[in-house]
C-alpha cells in the first residue's frame, strides 16, 4: 500500500512540518503527559466506583467524566497535534489497553466477577490438579478443548505460586495490551503512518466489549492478540521477499495455530478474514499477488478445522442452539408453565426489566451510525489506492469493514441478533478502526492530505474538534452497548439477574463449599447465576430447563418427575429471588416467564422445599439454601 502521501505531511512547505522546537522534544515527547492525563481519568473512574459501592448518587458522573478523559486525551492529542513522535504514538497504543484494563481491575480488583470466567477457572483448577488437559468440564464442555488461556495461566501459576486469579489477571492483562500494540503495528505496517496507527488503536478501544468482555478471563482473550498477529504477520510477509517472506509466513501460520487452540469463534473469524484476503488479492494488479496468501489461508484453515473436528469435538454441540435459533428466525421461547400450582398467574404482561435504557440505545445507535458512515468512505479511499502499492491485507481489511452493515442486519433481523451482533463487533471493529483511522488521520485539518470532492464547509466541519467528538461518541456508544449492562455498569451491592452485580460473597463461598464438601458431581438446579457459579466453581453439573421447580407453590409429582429426569440431586435456592426482580429479565436459564416478571417470586415458591419428605436442608447462610434430594430417592 502506498505510504499515504506521507511526504506531503512533512514536506518543507507543509504547515505540519516539525519545527526545531518539536524536534528538540526530548526522548519520550509528550508521552508522560499523556500517561498522567489518562491515569487521572482512571482515578476518576476509581472514585466513581468507590462512590457507587457507597451508594453515592454522584458516582455515575465521575465515572462518565473518567471515561471521556481516557478517550478524549489521546484522540485529541493525535488529531490536534501537528507532528507527533513515534514514541508518542506507540505510547498511546500501549496506554489505551493499560488504562482500560485498569478500569476492569478497579471494578473488581481481587476476584473474577463474570460467569464465563468461572468456567475457565474450573478448567485451570483441573489442569493444576490433574496436570493434564482435555478433562470433562461440568460447566462449559467446550472450555477444556480450547485450553490456550488456561495453559498460559497455569504455567504462570505453577512457576510463580500465584493464585489462578492473580495469574489470570496477569495473563489476560498481557493479552489485552498485546491487542492494542498488535493493532497499532498492523496499521503502521499498512499505512506507514504512526498517527493513523495510533488512531486505529484508540478507535478499536471504543468497541463495545473492549474494556470488559474482551479483557475477562475467558478463552477469547488469548485468541484475540494472535488473531491480530496473524494479520500483522501477513502484512509483513507481503512487504518482504524471499526467505524473509517465508519466515513471516511461518510466523503467521504459528500464530494461527495459537488461535486455533485458544478459541473457536476467533478461529472461524480468522479463516473468514484470510479468505477475504485471498479474494482481495485477486482485485489487485498481478505484480503484487503472491501464492503465499492462499498457502497461509489453507494452512490456517486446515489447522482450525482439524482442531475443531479432532480435538474440540464439543464445538458443534456448543454452537448448535445458536445456529438453530439463527436459522429458525424466532426467539427461543420455552413452554409456559405450569399448571394449577403455578405462581405466575393471570394475564402475563411485559415486566419492567430486561430492556436496555433508551438513552443507552440512542448513544449506541449514534456510534454505529458514525461507523456506518465512515467505514464505506474509508474503504473507498483505500480502494482508490489499489493500483498504488496496496496489498491484500489492506484491501481485505477495507472490504471487511463493510461487514458493519451485515452486523446491523444481523442485529435487527436475527432471533438472537443482539448478542450475536455485540460479540461480532469485537472482530468487525478491527477493520473498521483501520478505515476510520485512515479517514480521520489522512484528511485532518489544515495541511493534511487531499480530501477530494469535498466542499469547504465539509472540510471545515471535519476538523479535529469534530473528529475527537466522534471518537468520544464511539467510546460512549461502546460502553452503552457493551458489558457491563447499565444496571451493573458501576459496582455495588448484589442485584438479582445482573451479571457482574450478581456475584457476591454468598454465592462464591457457597460455590467453594460445594466444591470442597460435596464429593459427588451430581446435578444441581437453581437460578441462572447461582447455578452457573456453583456449577463452575463447585464442579457440579448445571441442570438447565428446571425453572419449573421454582415456579410452583407446591411440590407435586411432576416436580418429582422433573427432578428424576433431569438428574438433579441438589436444589439451590437464593432467597433474594423473593425480594428482587431480575435485572436482565429472567431468573432461570430457559425461563418461561422471561421478561414478564412484574414482581418477585412469592416465598411459597421456595419455602415448599422445606417440607418435602426425605429432603435435607444441608446448607444455609441466611441467603442461599441447598437442599439434598438424595434422601428422597433422587440423585
Amino acid at each position, binding site marked *: *500500500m502506498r*505510504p499515504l502521501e506521507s511526504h506531503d*505531511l512533512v514536506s518543507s512547505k507543509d504547515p505540519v512540518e516539525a519545527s526545531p522546537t518539536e524536534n528538540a522534544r*526530548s*526522548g*519520550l*515527547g509528550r508521552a*508522560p*503527559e499523556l500517561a*498522567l492525563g489518562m*491515569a*487521572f481519568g*482512571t482515578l476518576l*473512574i*476509581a472514585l466513581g*466506583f*468507590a462512590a457507587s*459501592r*457507597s451508594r453515592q448518587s454522584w458516582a455515575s458522573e465521575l465515572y462518565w467524566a473518567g471515561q471521556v478523559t481516557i478517550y478524549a486525551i489521546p484522540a485529541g492529542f493525535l488529531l490536534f497535534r*501537528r*507532528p507527533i*513522535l*513515534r*514514541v508518542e504514538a506507540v505510547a498511546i497504543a500501549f496506554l489505551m489497553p493499560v488504562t482500560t484494563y*485498569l478500569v476492569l481491575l*478497579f471494578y473488581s*480488583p481481587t476476584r473474577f466477577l463474570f460467569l464465563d470466567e468461572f468456567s475457565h477457572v474450573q478448567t485451570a483448577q483441573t489442569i493444576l490438579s490433574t496436570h493434564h488437559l482435555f478433562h470433562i468440564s461440568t460447566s462449559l464442555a467446550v472450555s477444556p478443548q480450547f485450553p*490456550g488461556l488456561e*495453559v*498460559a495461566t*497455569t*504455567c*504462570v501459576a505453577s*512457576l*510463580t505460586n500465584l493464585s489462578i486469579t492473580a495469574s489470570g489477571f*496477569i*495473563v489476560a492483562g*498481557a*493479552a489485552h495490551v*498485546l491487542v492494542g*500494540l498488535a493493532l497499532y503495528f498492523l496499521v503502521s505496517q499498512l499505512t*506507514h503512518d504512526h498517527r493513523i496507527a495510533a488512531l486505529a488503536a484508540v478507535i478499536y478501544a471504543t468497541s463495545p466489549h473492549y474494556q470488559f468482555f474482551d479483557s475477562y478471563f475467558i478463552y477469547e482473550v*488469548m485468541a484475540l*492478540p494472535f488473531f491480530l498477529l496473524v494479520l500483522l504477520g501477513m502484512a509483513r510477509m507481503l512487504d518482504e521477499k524471499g526467505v524473509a517472506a517465508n519466515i513471516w509466513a511461518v510466523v503467521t501460520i*504459528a500464530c494461527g495455530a495459537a488461535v486455533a*487452540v485458544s478459541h473457536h469463534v476467533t478461529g472461524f473469524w480468522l479463516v473468514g478474514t484470510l479468505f477475504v484476503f485471498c479474494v482481495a488479492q485477486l482485485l489487485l494488479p498481478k505484480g503484487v499477488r503472491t501464492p503465499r496468501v492462499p498457502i497461509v489461508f489453507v494452512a490456517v484453515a486446515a489447522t482450525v478445522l482439524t482442531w475443531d473436528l479432532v480435538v474440540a469435538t464439543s464445538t458443534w454441540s456448543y454452537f448448535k442452539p445458536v445456529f438453530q435459533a439463527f436459522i429458525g428466525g424466532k426467539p427461543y421461547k420455552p413452554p409456559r408453565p405450569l399448571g394449577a400450582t403455578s405462581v405466575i398467574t393471570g394475564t402475563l404482561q411485559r415486566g419492567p426489566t430486561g430492556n436496555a435504557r433508551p438513552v443507552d440505545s440512542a448513544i449506541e445507535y449514534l456510534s454505529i451510525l458514525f461507523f456506518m458512515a465512515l467505514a464505506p468512505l474509508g474503504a473507498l479511499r483505500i480502494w482508490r489506492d489499489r493500483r498504488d*502499492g496496496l496489498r491484500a491485507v489492506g484491501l481485505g481489511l477495507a472490504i471487511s469493514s463493510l461487514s458493519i452493515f451485515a452486523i446491523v442486519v444481523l442485529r435487527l433481523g436475527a432471533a438472537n441478533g443482539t448478542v450475536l451482533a455485540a460479540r461480532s463487533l469485537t472482530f468487525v471493529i478491527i477493520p473498521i478502526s483501520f478505515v476510520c483511522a485512515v479517514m480521520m488521520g489522512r484528511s485532518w485539518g489544515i495541511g493534511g492530505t487531499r480530501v477530494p470532492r469535498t466542499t469547504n464547509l465539509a472540510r471545515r466541519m471535519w476538523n479535529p474538534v469534530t473528529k475527537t467528538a466522534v471518537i468520544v461518541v464511539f467510546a460512549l456508544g461502546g460502553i452503552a452497548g457493551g458489558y457491563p449492562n447499565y444496571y451493573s455498569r458501576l*459496582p455495588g451491592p448484589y442485584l438479582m439477574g445482573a451479571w457482574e452485580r450478581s456475584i*457476591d460473597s*454468598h454465592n462464591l463461598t457457597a460455590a467453594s*463449599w460445594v466444591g470442597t464438601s460435596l464429593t459427588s458431581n451430581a446435578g444441581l438446579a437453581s437460578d441462572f447465576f447461582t447455578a452457573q457459579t456453583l456449577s463452575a466453581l463447585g464442579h457440579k453439573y448445571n441442570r438447565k430447563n428446571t425453572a419449573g421447580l421454582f415456579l410452583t407453590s407446591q411440590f407435586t409429582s411432576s416436580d418429582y418427575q422433573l427432578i428424576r429426569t433431569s438428574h438433579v440431586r441438589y436444589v439451590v435456592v437464593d432467597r433474594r429471588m423473593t425480594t428482587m426482580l431480575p435485572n436482565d429479565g429472567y431468573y432461570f436459564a430457559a425461563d418461561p416467564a422471561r421478561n414478564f416478571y412484574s414482581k418477585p417470586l412469592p416465598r411459597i415458591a421456595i419455602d415448599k422445599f422445606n417440607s418435602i419428605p*426425605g429432603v*435435607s436442608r*444441608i*446448607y*444455609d*447462610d*441466611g441467603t442461599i439454601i441447598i437442599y439434598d434430594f*438424595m*434422601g428422597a430417592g433422587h440423585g
Partner: protein
Amino acid sequence: MGTLSSPRRSSLALIIGTDVCAAIAAVTTQPVVTVVVGLPLALFLPGAALVLAVDPRRRQVQGAQRLMWTVAASLGMVILGGLLLNVLGGLTRTSWLLLITASVLLQGVVAWLRGGSATESASGLPAGTAEPVSSVETEAAEVGAAAHARESGTSELSGSTIQSRHPVGIRQVALLIAAAVVAAGGMLLSVSSASTASRESFVQAWILTQPPDDPGSTKAQFGITNHEGRREQFILNETIGLSSPSQQVVTLDDRQTWRAEILRKSGDQVVVTVRLTSRPQTTVATVRLAVAARIPHGTSGSTTTTRPGTTKTTTIPPKSTVTSTSASGATTSTAPSH
C-alpha cells in the same frame, strides 16, 4: 566476550538468565522471589530466545515491536508447549522449568549459530545488517535499516511522525512516576472500597451425613464459618429426633470455621439452628437432616479430633455438653437447654 557479536552476547545472556531463573525457581520458597523469577520464565524469556533465533540481527523487528513479539512468542510457546507436556507426562512445575530451559537453550544455540561473530558482522555484510556495537553505530544502522525498509515498504520512520533521539528528561521521569502513583492510588482505593463498602456479613452453616452419599448414615458433620467480619458468638440449638433441644455457644473469629460430629439414632431427623448472641431472637441459619429413606444399623461412640489451623472438630453426643477452646483462643462453651 569482547569479540562476540551482539546476537551471540544476547543468546548467551538469555541462556544464562534462564538457567539462573530456573535454578532459583527450583529451590526458592520465598513468594516474592518466586514471582520475580517465575514471571520472566513464563512471559518473556522463551519468546525472547525465539525472536532472537528467528531474527538475530534485528533486521525484521526492533524496539517496541520486538518487545511485543517477545511477549507474544512467549505466550505462544507456552500454549504449544503445554500441549506437548500434556503428551509427554504432565504440566507440572518441574516439567515447565525443564521445557522452558531446554527451549531457550535450543533457540539460544540457533541464535548463536545465526548470529555470527563480530568480525563476520563487520566485514562485507550489507548496510543495515551488521549488528551495531555502539550508540553511534546503532543510530547509523537504524537509519540504514530505515532506508532499506522504506524501499521495501517497512519503514517505521515515515508518515507524520518524528524519530526522537533525545534522552529522557528528569521532568518526564517525574511525570511518569506521578502517573504510576495516580494509577496505584486508584487501585488502592478500589481494593479498599471493594473489601469494605460492599462486604456481606453472614454465617455459613451446613450439615452432611458421613459419608455424604449415604442419607441413612447415623453419623453427620455439622459446621459453621463466621463471615460476619468480626469476632462473634453463636448460639447453636440442636434437636435430634424427638428429644428436647440442646444449646451450645461457640465463639469464632472472622472466617474461622467450627465443626462438630453428630450422632443420631436410626431414622432420626436432626435440626440445628444458628443465632447470634447479639441478636438472639433472629435465626440466621437453619440446617436439617431429613428422616432417612434408608437407615443403616448401628451407632458408634464419640471421638474427638482437632484439625490444624482455624478449624475445630468436636463430637457432640446427643444432649451432651462440651466445653473447648478454639484454635485461635476463642472460648467455646455449651450449656444444656431445656
